[in-house]
């Protein structure tokens, strides 16, 4: 089987990549500024909702229901899309999905396509596959365009060019568009508008992802801000939508939860500027040929893990990236995948599905387990628990050692937040056992660990407690 392009070929392991990224002071400055801005705004957008916790619980439960009935719901979606004039395709992996899309483009005799920002197509490396097949994909989302024109890689789920500041963006635009432009965000947006306008009006095939697909009506939902999505979803003759099989909601009513959770978690707005909903083909309005490509690419394997499968609830809001102290310092590219940050640290290795892949296996360790990601997650993915569970699996895969026993114990402890807090308090007691900041012997099961090494004494205050006090 071909390798899963969800991780970038040749990426170093997380600790190596992070070490390098930490040297880049410009990157750290850009990230601190951007994540700081969005953290404050998200908090205000959420604070305005008195029923936020109830919405989170409903979001979690609806997505769990989707995972429990995924086969039935997918068949239902296929029926409703087909009944409304759409064509549904199924792809086991990235290679199969890319081939389907390339064949569809060729059938339309298109050598150029416009694209709406989509994590699914980035995950399968669609642009590269199309390019190899002679079809050029034009990214139309502003941040994706910045990444594409800069021959760069994305570093954030929502804002792939978050690592670039305005003057860097100006430089890329001047170089690649051949225009004079200031570094004012409004001028940069105007430059993108002019650059892409003609493409929108003339390109016959568009490719999109999907934020949600409603099983009982066959409706597909895309949330966006700029209007590039509407352009792609409305003007071309043919629309190809690529989505992961877990992007379903059972009913139209379920959207009432996610249309409230996603914008506030993602861009910190009450509602994003544009949301498009379409169901198959509507005569006289929009694309008259519609293809829906459903991709597995590691999702069914993830589904078999009773702890890890909750990662499939993810609605790609990126709130967990914006609050993560590790992400803020290392940036997204250190994760070596289109899915960076806390969610990437649990989703990417599961989609790769190979615990012996050193890069993917390093990702669950890319966290301080502070728990901020869980607290902001709109579908309540317990990321710290999944991280420790995956750490235990990675260690287990290397063979049974003192480390694997310790990791299994840690995984058990993290599964309950209260258990973890208690253990941390107990850990602070261990300071009294320590001499010179080191503990040389711990009681069992810690003795399995200290027999081969010293343990640094736990700090007086846990990182989790510090973060809550200072940043939460």
């Amino acid at each position: 089987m071909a390798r899963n392009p969800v991780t970038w070929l040749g990426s170093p392991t997380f600790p190596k990549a992070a070490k390098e990224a930490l040297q880049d002071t410009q990157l750290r400055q850009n990230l601190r500024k951007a994540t700081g801005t969005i953290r404050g705004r998200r908090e205000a957008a959420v604070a305005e909702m008195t029923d936020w916790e109830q919405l989170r619980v409903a979001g979690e439960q609806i997505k769990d229901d989707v995972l429990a009935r995924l086969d039935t719901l997918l068949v239902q979606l296929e029926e409703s899309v087909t009944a409304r004039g759409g064509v549904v395709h199924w792809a086991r992996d990235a290679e199969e999905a890319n081939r389907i899309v390339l064949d569809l483009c060729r059938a339309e005799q298109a050598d150029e396509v416009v694209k709406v920002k989509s994590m699914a197509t980035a995950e399968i490396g669609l642009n590269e596959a199309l390019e190899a097949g002679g079809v050029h994909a034009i990214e139309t989302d502003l941040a994706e365009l910045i990444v594409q024109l800069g021959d760069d890689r994305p570093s954030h789920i929502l804002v792939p060019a978050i690592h670039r500041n305005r003057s860097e963006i100006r430089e890329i635009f001047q170089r690649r568009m051949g225009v004079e432009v200031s570094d004012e965000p409004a001028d940069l947006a105007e430059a993108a508008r002019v650059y892409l306008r003609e493409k929108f009006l003339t390109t016959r095939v568009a490719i999109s992802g999907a934020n949600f697909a409603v099983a009982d009506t066959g409706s597909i939902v895309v949330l966006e801000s700029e209007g590039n999505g509407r352009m792609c979803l409305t003007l071309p003759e043919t629309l190809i939508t690529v989505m992961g099989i877990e992007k379903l909601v059972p009913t139209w009513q379920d959207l009432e939860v996610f249309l409230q959770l996603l914008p506030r978690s993602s861009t910190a707005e009450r509602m994003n500027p544009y949301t498009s909903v379409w169901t198959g083909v509507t005569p006289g309005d929009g694309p008259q040929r519609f293809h829906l490509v459903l991709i597995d690419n590691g999702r069914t394997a993830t589904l078999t893990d009773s702890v890890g499968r909750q990662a499939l609830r993810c609605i790609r809001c990126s709130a967990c990236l914006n609050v993560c102290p590790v992400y803020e310092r290392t940036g997204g590219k250190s994760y070596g995948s289109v899915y960076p940050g806390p969610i990437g640290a649990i989703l990417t290795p599961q989609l790769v599905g190979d615990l012996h892949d050193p890069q993917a296996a390093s990702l669950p360790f890319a966290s301080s387990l502070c728990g901020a990601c869980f607290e902001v997650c709109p579908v309540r993915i317990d990321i710290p628990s999944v991280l420790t569970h995956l750490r235990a699996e990675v260690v287990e895969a290397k063979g049974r050692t003192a480390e694997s026993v310790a990791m299994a114990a840690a995984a058990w402890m993290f599964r309950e937040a209260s258990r973890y807090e208690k253990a941390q308090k107990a850990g602070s007691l261990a300071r009294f056992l320590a001499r010179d900041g080191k503990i040389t012997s711990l009681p069992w099961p810690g003795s399995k660990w200290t027999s081969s090494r010293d343990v640094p004494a736990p700090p007086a205050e846990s990182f989790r407690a510090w973060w809550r006090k200072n940043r939460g």
Partner: protein
Amino acid sequence: MASAREEILQRIRDAKVPPARPVVRGYDRTGPGGVELFAERVADYRAIVHTVTSVPDALKALAGKRIVAPQGVPHEWLIDGVTWLREPLSIEELDRADGVLTGCAVAIADTGTIVLDGGEAQGRRALTLLPDYHLCVVRVDQIAASVPEALQRLEPTRPLTFISGPSATSDIELNRVEGVHGPRTLEVLIV
């Protein structure tokens, strides 16, 4: 060899995910609602909002402009002094228009959103996308209090566009900038 479809469905069944707990909808499905809240929230997106008693009077400001008017726009809105562009219109004609005048299907007070469904006085989606200026008339009875109430009023299989303010981006340093590909000016008339 099994088809991709059969294989994926079989893998899902083999994963044996236990049934989920029933969904508890403990969240608020209504909300305070109201015209004032709607107007305030639309304005928060830096859209222009007016509350008017007569649409034709308010439209006098369009004099001299070339404005797209979709099918089903009430006859009295089509005042003299404005060049009204009617379907069929090509993409190029839409692109050159000064603006578009529409009604809407539903509006949402809580989020300051208007929703178009391609019905009367709204037209196909391209009409409200290519002109740089969108003037939308919202009747008070069309304003739902909350997102749940609005979804309940909509027919999901129609092509829907939810619009919350003018086109915008947060892609440069995560700060919101109005005006990218969609209409850069959104004006809402509440009747």
